[in-house]
């Protein structure tokens, strides 16, 4: 039973990471590419870590909760790395695709 739960969590988690990577390849411009890795991957990793937590709690004596810390650090660092990338993309004036709206909302930097 526990094996089933762990396998399902691993599969769903792996699926989310795969979708994030597909987004990275498939999207037409840099700004849209950024959406996959910043979001889909965080949940995928969280699911993998929950699976690891259940696995190590069952094969060892006592609970294994270190994995919560890894998810916490991922949640803290994912938005910051995304922000740094999009900030440098705006600074380099990377092209966004034609139908992007609200481009005039970007102010020129100093």
């Amino acid at each position, binding site marked *: 039973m526990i094996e089933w739960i762990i396998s399902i969590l691993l599969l769903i988690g792996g699926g989310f990471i795969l979708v994030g990577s597909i987004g990275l390849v498939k999207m037409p411009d840099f700004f849209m590419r950024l959406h996959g890795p910043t979001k889909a991957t965080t949940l995928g990793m969280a699911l993998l870590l929950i699976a690891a937590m259940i696995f190590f709690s069952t094969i060892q004596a006592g609970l294994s909760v270190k994995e919560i810390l890894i998810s916490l650090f991922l*949640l803290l660092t994912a938005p910051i790395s995304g922000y740094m990338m999009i900030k440098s993309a705006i600074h380099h004036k990377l092209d966004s695709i034609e139908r992007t709206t609200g481009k005039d909302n970007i102010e020129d930097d100093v």
Partner: protein
Amino acid sequence: MRLEAKFKWLPTPYRSLLLFAVWLLLNNSVSAGHILLAVTLAVVIPLATSPFRTKQPLIIKPGLAFRHLMLVLYDIITANIQVAILILGPNKKLTPGFVKVPLDLAHNMPITILASTVSLTPGTVSAELYPWRECLAEGKEPEKRFLLIHVLNLEDEQALIKTIKERYEAPLKEIFQC
């Protein structure tokens, strides 16, 4: 808004609690020795590092902060499913856009938290904070700030701004009372 904590020896109470929990989680045990060490570290580290830090607003309503955290975690899960559907669907249907959200928050710490939640939730990534720091005179605070966000699939700009302001910004204003 409050910058100074109630007790001088405990400058950042919730950060101390976090340090305590992190130490116990890292060691994966709740034995008496580790609890004693965790308490010592949780008191000494914030005290030793407080002179280096700029003062940030403290959390005034911890209960509300916890509720907001749960709401954001729930939103992260739904956001992931939504973005997964958008990514797997045809590219032609997506209409990306840049949106400027006016902010009521004035302090760095709450704005950082807001920008991070925006990055983690449905189809939006925060891109920039206006006005530029360099444009302001030394030590002068801007009157009105804007957060530039990139949206993967923009349908209704006003509705999006309204959601961000009501769902994520209003609770933060309550929590920090600023």
